[in-house]
């Protein structure tokens, strides 16, 4: 008897290049149509072929968006996957794999699944993916037609032969899956989500990219770097439709300086990169601060130092964004935690960048960008973006002094004035100066905007009830889904959560939220960077920290454990 009434965790494992992505994408699309609550996340190696990559797909009755350690069913397209996942395989795990490959090791729980044989029966190993998807759909009991319809649509262009072979493969797998489900008495969580036309399925990269388009982003210059490349390819694919200028730079230094040139000339410019590439952009960030030119930077986190683990996940670059670039100037940092927040991140970033004429960071990570789940289309809309550009008069001065430190932003060619920006300390016109008095004024000008930036900063999302709680678990960025699930699972009113989708600057109200609470900060890094920031900015004592920096995200179980430990401490 295998009843998963609330929650089923399936994991798919195979070598790079084996088509894992096809299998999981197929399944997700079909399961979504079936009305299931879905969440999927992926971990992969830094290589193109071979090795072992895995994807988890969760089907849940409640809306869950977090990584589960437990594996209910493991579909091992390559025997390597079983080794790779050994620590997560429990006696309860059903192992769908080719039994002979393990010389008896997993015989107890292995359901011999002859991928290769089936595929060969269909004609070629390329159909293994379809077989695999068929097996899963058979187990779940989704009508076979929804699968074959899907295949017809997908392979229409490739001709009838391909369609029909895929259909055969699908049926082979499906029947096997059905049979197994009946034999083992497998029961799934119900499809509680109800499919509707406003329900969309996408990954974090798409959500972020759609937000960029919604924000009117029309310029990207970037040097590829995982996991930052996703935004580049997304915008490249939309370039024609939406008039986005895409330039693949020769290096990251070129990327940010080109983006700054573009922004100076009035473009809505973005760069995307990861830690090492971002290091090289720091002088450019400092330049953005000096010339008061809007700059949106997508910093997609992965484990460092140096090259580190290029395809893994970490939340280790908050300090990097906080202190990037020499010299003092204002900045803002956003850290979306859900698909919804990802779609809002870029519009908000561009609004802040334009209004305050500063660099704005959007911090994501590999885990979040590659995670796939559903989102309500109603959340995604084009919003008006704050714009600071004016038509210049003949006597225009780019750095005219003002009460709030902000000057109207002219762009070259628009109006009668000339627009002069200078990386040296400059006067109101933008010309180089060595006056100490002017220097003093300009330092103040650049910093004065911090006040308003702070006062209008986004508040953290409260999970649970602040009134009832004595303990506050705090996270940022991609850990939002984790915290929501864990707090819900614990069901302890004394423990509430805060998720920061804007870690910097912190709204002054934040300090009051933390008052008189026991504080625990959860971060996917080695030292607790938000914890440091909180203690610095809110003047509260250094909070407890739950940290992980192995390159993997937290599992729900780990976090439940850690919080239980705290409760008993």
């Amino acid at each position, binding site marked *: 008897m295998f009843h998963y009434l609330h929650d089923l965790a399936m994991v798919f494992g195979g070598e790079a290049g084996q088509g894992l992505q096809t299998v999981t994408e197929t399944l997700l699309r079909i399961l979504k149509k079936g009305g299931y609550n879905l969440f999927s996340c992926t971990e992969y190696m830094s290589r193109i072929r071979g090795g072992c990559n895995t994807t988890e797909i969760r089907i849940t009755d409640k809306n869950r968006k977090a990584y589960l350690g437990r594996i209910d069913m493991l579909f091992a397209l390559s025997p390597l996957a079983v080794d790779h996942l050994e620590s997560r395989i429990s006696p309860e795990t059903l192992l769908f794999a080719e039994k002979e490959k393990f010389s008896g090791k997993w015989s107890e729980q292995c359901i011999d699944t002859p991928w290769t044989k089936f595929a060969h029966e269909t004609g070629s190993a390329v159909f293994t993916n379809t077989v695999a998807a068929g097996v899963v759909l058979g187990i779940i009991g989704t009508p076979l037609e929804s699968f074959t319809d899907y295949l017809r649509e997908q392979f229409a262009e490739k001709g009838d032969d391909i369609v029909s072979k895929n259909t055969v493969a699908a049926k082979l797998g499906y029947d096997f899956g059905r049979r197994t489900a009946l034999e083992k008495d497998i029961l799934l969580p119900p499809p509680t989500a109800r499919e509707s*036309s406003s329900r969309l399925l996408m990954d974090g990269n798409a959500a972020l990219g759609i937000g960029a*388009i919604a924000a009117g982003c029309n310029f990207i210059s970037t040097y590829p770097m995982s996991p930052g490349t996703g935004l580049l390819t997304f915008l490249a694919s939309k370039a024609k*439709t939406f008039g986005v200028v895409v330039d693949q730079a020769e290096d990251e*230094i070129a990327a940010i300086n*080109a983006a700054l040139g573009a922004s100076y000339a009035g473009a809505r410019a973005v760069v995307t990169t990861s830690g090492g590439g971002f290091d090289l952009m720091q002088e450019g960030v400092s330049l953005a601060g000096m010339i008061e030119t809007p700059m949106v930077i997508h910093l997609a986190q992965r484990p460092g130092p140096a090259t580190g683990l290029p395809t893994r996940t970490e939340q280790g670059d908050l300090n990097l964004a906080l202190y990037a670039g020499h010299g003092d100037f204002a900045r803002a940092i956003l850290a979306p935690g859900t698909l919804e927040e990802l779609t809002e991140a870029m519009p908000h970033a561009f609004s802040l960048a334009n209004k305050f004429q500063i660099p704005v960071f959007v911090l994501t990570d590999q885990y979040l960008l590659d995670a796939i789940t559903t989102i309500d289309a109603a959340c995604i809309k084009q919003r008006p973006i704050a714009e600071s*550009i004016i038509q210049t008069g003949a006597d225009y001065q780019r750095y005219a002094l003002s009460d709030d430190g902000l000057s109207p932003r002219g762009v*070259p060619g628009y109006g009668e004035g000339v627009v002069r920006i200078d990386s040296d300390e400059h006067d109101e016109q933008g010309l180089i100066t060595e006056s100490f008095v002017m220097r003093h004024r300009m330092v103040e000008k650049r910093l004065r905007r911090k006040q308003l930036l702070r006062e209008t900063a986004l508040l953290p999302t409260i999970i649970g009830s602040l009134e009832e709680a004595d303990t506050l678990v705090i996270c940022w960025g991609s850990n939002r889904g984790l915290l929501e699930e864990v707090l819900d699972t614990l069901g302890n009113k004394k423990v509430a959560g805060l998720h920061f989708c804007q870690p910097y600057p912190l709204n002054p109200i934040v300090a009051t939220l933390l008052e008189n609470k026991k504080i625990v900060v959860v971060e996917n890094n080695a030292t607790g960077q938000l914890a440091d920031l909180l203690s610095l900015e809110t003047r509260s004592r250094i909070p407890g920290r739950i940290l992980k920096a192995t390159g993997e995200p937290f599992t729900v179980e780990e976090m439940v454990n850690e919080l239980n430990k705290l409760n008993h401490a």
Partner: protein
Amino acid sequence: MAPATDMAWCPGCGNLMLHHAVKSALHELHIERKNLVMVSGIGQAAKSPQYINANMFNGLHGRALPAALGIKLSNRNLVVVVESGDGDMYGEGGNHFIHAIRRNLDVTVIVHNNMVYGLTKGQASPTSQRGMITPVQLNGVLLEPFNPLAVALAMNAPFVARAYAADVEETKEMIKQAITFRGFSLVDVFQPCVVFNKVNTYQWFKENTCYLPKNHDTRDRIAAFGLAIGPGKLPLGIFYRNEERDIYEDLLGIGNTPLYQKEAPDEKAFQAMIEAYR
């Protein structure tokens, strides 16, 4: 203070002459200041845009070319002229120099080549000649000098010229041609630094340069290369000119509407994009 009276250059410096040539060229070409963007990095040479009443992007050391790229791609109606030093363009900015040529953007690049780092007080630059003694190169420069013309030709830059600042008239003419040329145009300008470069003096340039032979075929890349690396006097003039290469703006399909005028994305297209995730 009006810009002209506050020039930070030394009396007698070649920058002053080159600046004169640039200003005259811009003037004679009737380029409107509101449509002109002067872009530079950091260095003595890179101060040039401070003294021209036009739009200015005085960015980071070595990073003038990427900034120029961003500007031009965002508004191709602007005339973009890059002016910077040899250290800026061939040292710190060497990678951008190469890759800018690959793009063939329609910008003009004027390099004040004084064969030394002026602003930082006299260290060797990439174009410093072997043997020149400096505070860092106490036994003289050891490295092969960077040959901007040869490299530009190797990269198939479509307009490659060299001028000598003290010959204001010829320099001006080359700059005019470069600005009117459609594509990436490089004018490397020998510019005496009277303070830090005691090797390549006015006298030295007089003795060691000559104009290209009248019969040099500016369409002949290999010949141009030979002249650029050749022994003997250093030729001045337009080495290479190739109108065939497409410019990057066209290849990318950049329209005439500057990006600051772009409207919000079309709602229908936007919905269609979202549709794909149903």
